[in-house]
């Protein structure tokens, strides 16, 4: 898998941002959180490579450490969505009948709503916090993962080994977890790497809409949200570098996800 050029580029980009998130504080030129109210909105210069923001903070330093929240939240949210979705998919695919019908309708209902609208409702209701972001994205991913898993389980449930397990009087939980799950793990893995790409997308979007990550985080989406009112005034540097950082990360994650899919599905 690592031999593919795309995957290599993806892994390099992600690796770069992970290192920045973990150790960025050690090599940034300024404290990313320190304000300087007498030097606000300075254009890029030798002193401040990417300029300064409305509070005089050094944008280069903030971009470097800005991946910290998104790289924590997106994987956790994906994990949550995958766990819940797999459970739901196993249950609906295995039992079918009324349980399946009812749950499938609820899944459809959730899928009929775009993520952003679910997020708007949930974030107004729950209040903004990192936990809310995780719950919202996990919740939105659950039905999507569940659908994939259910389709795979439907196929498996008709196979002989499941019938054999039933004849052995194994409990339903045992059959689902021990017998079926290992056989559907490959689509689950593919789905979850693809979801990770979307999760990055979603976290960035939610923090842009202004409902997630709290200030003074250097998060890129939050940075764009706080500064994009300024671009007509000519303060382009307050948003451009955050935007490019997001582009690099999402492209990196998706190159990796493509590689995973090709490897597992081959």
């Amino acid at each position, binding site marked *: 898998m690592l031999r593919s050029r795309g995957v290599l580029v993806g892994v390099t980009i992600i690796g770069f941002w992970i290192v920045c998130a973990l150790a960025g504080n050690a090599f940034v030129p300024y404290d990313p959180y320190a304000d300087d109210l007498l030097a606000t909105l300075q254009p890029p210069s030798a002193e401040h490579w990417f300029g300064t923001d409305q509070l005089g903070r050094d944008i280069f330093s903030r971009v470097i450490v800005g991946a910290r929240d998104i790289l924590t939240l997106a994987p956790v949210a994906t994990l949550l969505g995958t766990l819940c979705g797999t459970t739901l998919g196993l249950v609906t695919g295995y039992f079918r009948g009324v349980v399946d019908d009812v749950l499938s309708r609820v899944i459809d209902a959730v*899928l*009929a709503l775009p993520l952003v609208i679910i997020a708007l409702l949930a974030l107004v209701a729950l209040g903004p916090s990192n936990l809310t972001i995780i719950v919202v994205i996990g919740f939105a991913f659950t039905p999507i993962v569940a659908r994939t898993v259910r389709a795979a389980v439907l196929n498996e449930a008709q196979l002989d080994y499941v019938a054999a397990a039933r004849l052995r009087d194994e409990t339903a939980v045992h059959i689902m977890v021990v017998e079926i799950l290992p056989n559907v793990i490959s689509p689950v893995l593919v789905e979850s790497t693809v979801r990770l790409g979307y999760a990055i997308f979603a976290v960035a*979007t939610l923090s842009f809409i202004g409902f997630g990550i709290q200030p003074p985080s250097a998060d890129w989406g939050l940075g764009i949200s706080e500064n994009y009112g300024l*671009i007509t005034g000519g303060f382009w540097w307050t*948003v451009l570098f955050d935007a490019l950082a997001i582009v690099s990360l999402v492209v990196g994650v*998706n190159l990796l996800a493509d590689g995973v899919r090709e490897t597992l599905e081959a």
Partner: protein
Amino acid sequence: MSRLLFKRLALSFATLWILSVLVFGAGQVLPGDPARAILGPLAEARAVAVLNHQLGTDRPLLVQYWDWISHFVRGDPGMSYAYRAPAGPFIASALGNSLLLGAVAFLIVVPLSLFGGVWAALHAGRFVDRAITLLGLSATVIPEFVSGIVLILVFGVWLRWLPISATAPRGGGFGSQLFHLILPSMPLVLVLFGYIARMARAGTVEALAAEYTRTAVLKGLPRRDVLFRHVLRNALLPTIAVIGTQTGYLIGGLVVIEVLFRYQGIGTLIYTAARAKDFPLLEAGVLSVGIVYTLATLIADLLYAALNPRVRFGAGE
């Protein structure tokens, strides 16, 4: 076919009903209350209680829900709490705005990506092909607000070619409105370009390799005619599928675009209604999104089946 249609419709109604219950439930946990949202934080508690009584929001939840849904099924979406006016016209205008934006995006992206996909397929494996595929893939995964910001900077602020605001000034006319929608539609175009071009490319490659194309070329038909007749038709199918499956996404993307470009669409409406706890407006807004989604999926499925005889019989559930 009609039995299938009937079943699909029944399921859709069930889905929409569940959606209405979910939204109602979500509406109850939103902070604040409708009268407080109208009167503001500094108003006296007594005045707030009086207004809640006037609005009927102090009644038991089930009564409120029944009151709302019994009117809704008769085609009456109720009165907005905040605006004290029928919710219908607000929804219609907001949904109209959103659909217009979506339509502009599709008008641009469909020919563009079909062309790109077919072109890539004709040059399969060469540089053009790889460039289109790679660009399409990258553009698809970039959040709309990020590409939107870059587009605003380049075309709105630096080159000054296009207006930054999605809303034309009052009295500007339809043409002016369309002009204002070009920039806001571009992020959607970017996201969709990758999907549609990829499918069109795959469809074309398959069609080019197919027996009937070779036969046609061997029969001496000009290559251009063959391409046009067979290949484009096949490329169109996946596009319709994309329209169906991506509507949900599209509406979500529209919300972000509406926020970025300050456009008064359905997303903005739902957001303000949720904040104001304007329940009738919120329900009507969310359900209209649900209905559009369900209808789009349904129509796309039917069209797909009509255009492609192979799936007609296999299209169980």
